[in-house]
């Protein structure tokens, strides 16, 4: 099972969502996709998108005193 990390720190709407979707498209079932970002709305919208697609969000972690976040998704 592969691990894929995408860095969208500093990117704004809609890039974090779009890059996350592109990574999920490339990943194989079971792979771990880790998204690192700073855009506040995407922190809640990426999990919404995952839920809509039936994918499991394993962890949402805040970093750098809340300025950054990291979302782990099981494809």
């Amino acid at each position, binding site marked *: 099972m592969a691990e894929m990390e995408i860095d969208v720190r*500093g*990117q*704004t*709407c*809609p*890039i974090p*969502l*779009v890059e*996350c*979707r*592109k990574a*999920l*498209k490339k990943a194989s*079932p079971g792979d771990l996709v880790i998204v690192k970002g700073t855009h506040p709305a995407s922190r809640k*919208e990426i999990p*919404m*998108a995952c*839920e*809509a*697609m*039936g*994918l499991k969000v394993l962890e949402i972690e805040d970093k750098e005193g809340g300025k950054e976040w990291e979302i782990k998704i099981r*494809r």
Partner: protein
Amino acid sequence: MGDKDPEISRRGMKMGEKTVIILHSGDMDKVYSALIIANGALAMGMEASIYFTFWGLMRLKKGELDKGPLSKMNMLGLGRQMIKQRMNKANVASLERLMNDFKELGGKIIACEMTMEIMGLSKEELRTDWIDEWGAVGSYIQEARNANVTLFI
């Protein structure tokens, strides 16, 4: 198209979840709205298509995607320049990038044939690499028939 990862679709996506946008305006800010919404729909597991008509179709001319004026306060291009600078500063993606992402995620582009006739446009003048279908009102209705979200911009 859009079915490279059927596993995702089968597990979560309800059949027929679709966003269909008519882009009638050629204004830069409205082209942004259309492409951002359409990309958002694809990113959230829906299908998406954009029907380019009238002034919107002008944006499919080669090299013209980001050449539209601002819908308000264009001030002979001065306001447009200012907004572009502010967009750069806010790290907003270019329209070219949004279009490429839209296509990569399986988005569909329909070009209005009547507009081509009115404006005297030939297919050679348009970005045919982006266009999936040439059509008229019937194509839009057929797309929108089973869509949950449809917008006129």
